[in-house]
């Protein structure tokens, strides 16, 4: 049975985590917002998985719902829009780990509900299981609840569509294992971990086609309702760094191996 899907992917932006800035001497603050923005890596996996699924299911369509500063989103689209065809629904708002998950979920839910013609029989809601700016892993669940999607999967690494249209889902669990579930079919929410499928290569031709919709979507982007109104931060601190590095010169490989094995056993 060949089903086609409407895959709604929610993705925000994050400062490129591969490019930490070298702090400068003196009292200068390390400003991560000065880093180039990328699509939040967890959500990016969700988007790429959506791309592959949509490609293998003719008639499918991918929607990308993004809440982020409009100008930065535009820059990021220059890469992302080349990877797969999608329709962008943009919400202009902050990009930061301090935004409250419940408020973000509310804003996203309004945007997703506004997509015309969504059919619950074909609808998959994708996102990242957490964000590179914040590891709470709560937004997608809250969003699914608001949208009335009760089949929810977290830290997904693989999705397989069975012959009968049911969905087999691999969720990450402790110790490198997976919990495999079978779900009857859409609607379902999948919050992705890294997934299994590769990042599609850039294809400017797809990009040019996407841009016809992306640019007007960015122009239309409504400011998200002000976030952060409902919460107050009493104290913010970096987690204490733990580093257990020892510099040992001239250790024999056997000795290193023994020590590593002991540490792993611990």
């Amino acid at each position, binding site marked *: 049975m060949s089903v086609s899907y409407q895959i709604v992917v929610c993705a925000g932006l994050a400062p490129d985590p591969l490019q930490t*800035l070298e*702090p400068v001497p003196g009292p200068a603050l390390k400003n991560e917002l*000065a880093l*180039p923005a990328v699509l939040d890596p967890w959500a990016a996996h969700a988007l790429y998985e959506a791309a592959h699924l949509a490609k293998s299911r003719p008639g499918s369509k991918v929607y990308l719902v993004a809440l982020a500063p409009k*100008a930065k989103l535009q820059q990021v689209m220059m*890469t992302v829009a080349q990877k797969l065809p999608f329709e962008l629904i943009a919400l202009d708002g902050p990009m930061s780990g301090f935004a409250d998950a419940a408020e973000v979920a509310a804003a996203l839910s309004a945007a997703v509900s506004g997509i015309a013609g969504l059919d619950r029989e074909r609808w998959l809601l994708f996102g990242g299981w957490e964000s590179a700016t914040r590891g709470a892993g709560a937004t997608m669940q809250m969003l699914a609840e608001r949208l009335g999607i009760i089949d929810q999967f977290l830290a997904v690494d693989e999705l397989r569509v069975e012959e009968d249209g049911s969905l087999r889902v691999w969720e990450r669990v402790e110790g490198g294992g997976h919990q495999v579930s079978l779900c009857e079919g859409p609607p379902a929410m999948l919050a992705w971990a890294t997934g299994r499928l590769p990042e599609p290569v*850039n*294809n400017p031709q797809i990009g040019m086609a996407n841009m016809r919709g992306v640019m007007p979507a960015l122009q239309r982007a409504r400011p998200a309702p002000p976030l952060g109104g409902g919460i107050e931060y009493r104290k913010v601190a970096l987690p204490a760094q733990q580093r257990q590095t020892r510099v040992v010169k001239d250790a024999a490989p056997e000795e290193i191996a023994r020590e590593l094995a002991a540490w792993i056993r611990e």
Partner: protein
Amino acid sequence: MRATAIGKETQTLRTLPGDDVRQILWRFGDRFDLQMLVQSVRAVARGPVARAVANGARHSHQWTKEKDDLLREFDAAGITSVFLDPEFGGYLAGPKNLALALTAFELAWVDAGAATASLAGCLGLAPIHERGTPEQKAEYMSRSAPGGDRTPLRGAFCLTEPIPYVGVETGLLSGKVRIAEWREGQEPLLHVTKRGRFITNMDFAGFVTAAVDSGDPKIHGSCMVILEKTDAGVFDPGAPARKLVHQLSSTTDPIFDLTVPASRIVGGYTIEDGVVVPNYSHSEIIEAVFRRTRVTVGLMTAAKLLSAVEPLIRYHRERFRGGESVPPGSPRFELGLQQREDVLHRLLEVWSTGEAAASLGFSTARLFDELDPLEREKERVLAAQGVHGGTALFKALRKRQPDAIECLTLAAQPAGRRNQERYDALAADPVVRFLALDAQANVLCPAVKLWNTGHGANVLREAVSLMGGYGITEDCPGFLGYKWMDAQLEATYEGPEAVQRRQLSLTMTNEVFLAQFKLWIGEMRRIAARYPGSGACALATAMELWLWTLNHLQKATDAAGVKLYSGNRQGVTFPLADALCWLLASRAQILDVVELAEQGPSHPVVSEGLEGLQNFFTDLCHAQAARAAGEVGRICAELVFGYRRHPSWDAEGDYQGCYQEDELIAIESLVPGMSAWTPDMIREDGSHASKAGPCARMDGLHDFTRLRAKLDGCLTGSLLARDRAAHALAHVMIPQALDYPA
């Protein structure tokens, strides 16, 4: 843009400039197609290309599978089809000079050989693109488009031949075209023989556009022909060149001995009195091709200079970390070699040269984007007046030159005071507009190629030095050693420095260009009034000095009475061409930073941290303008004085002007101290001061010396600017690691 001393309150550079800043500087903020292209090419450059280089793919002269795989990456990322119009499978509409420039820039950021490999295909197609018949265009463009699993047809461009012929002097060809067979009422078949030397892309080329001369009275002059691998005869790619650079591109010495239909003559032909007359000679086509592609080459070197900044800052800063006697938090730990002024100053020169080179290159690429449609429009207008190609066209354009000059002169006058009606009419005339832009393009193209690659190669050597021993190893972060060596090829192929200088010596004396140049001097002064710290004023003075020198040299003769400014006096024309390039590069850099000052504040992303960035870039402009002024001053002074004979004690006429001792005593008694102004004196016994001769005279050169002294004064503050920029360099945040393997 300002000029203040370093103070705590002064904002300075926070991070290295990112894409948003570059889009403003190089004016493609509104070109989403180009922004996407940049990202797409970058992913290939910093991914598969960088990995190939890091894995040692450059170690072989052969065309290996690893290198060949990159072609597929280029196809998939849209690099192969950048050059193609949408109707032939491309995705960018309109002129593509800026697009190709950005492509070359991104690839060369990692490896210029990869840039060459991807762009040589465009070079192969370029003769067809510029002068091909509509049928030739349709056929070869569409076959060159990658699509699905089909391997696109790849091209090569074959001009250079083994010695003794085609090299720098592109006129003499030993490659020949003859009539192989010509049946009554049918299209002639041509027999083409040519040996190529150093031809890029031959290992995989399916077609070649080759320059050949007629070896047959039935064919007139020279032409370019399209040769295909499947044509009857020999299409032998030949042995690979054992080159030291650009190893990710394929270069071989091919041999062709083929029979092809006459329809392969690029641009078509007519038959006059039983003779095949090609519509375009090989040199006409090559001129049209090179004037565009040379700009792209110049941007390769610019990219490499800018790519050196981040690895060098990191190397200097981290130089002493890990040493037992260098505890974290100590200045030596935090700043490393950046504690030392010289590394900062030299790195600034690398950076600034890169900025100026990129600004010059990209502005020229944009100029060609503007010129391309205008060129066709001009042809259309003139054709409507009955003027078609060749000498007639040349004459018609010459006739309109005074109009172009008038238009530029009117443009310089304030809007209220000029003859507005006349100005509007001229400014709207496509032929006038073409002439003005064309005159600029004829100077800017060789300037980009010459300065970016020639001077750029020298500065890349400096970059390698700044990395110490690492610099000269394969492990050097950012592949700086390779980049330096590669620059030597960029300075050589598509016409080495001598060719660019020769071309500049002709085009820079074009009156339309000079009228434009005068406007630019005024433009720099006006910018200086708004942005006093930018160095624009010093640059304007240097431009005046250059112009004065050019005018002077065009009239002056040397000590033997021989004309100074002439084609065979390369000792005069070449340095003056070099000097002009310094000016143009610095001007382009200043214009871009002005654009940033004007557009940045309203840009949602760039406006954050703009003040510090703007201060830094302004100081960089200032330092660069001073370097340019210094070069121009030196070159002009050497040229103005160097060809005059030095006065000697032996030549009677020379010392006759000197004061006699008793004369001076008399003068001194009237005006005490006066003798200090007269260095040369002959004593009663005929003896004189111990030196080469009486001091040289300045007759007729006082304007020059006044300007030169003024220029020296204009350097005021430039090293303060450099100090501020150096301070910024020691404090800017950089990523912890390079975003491509090395």
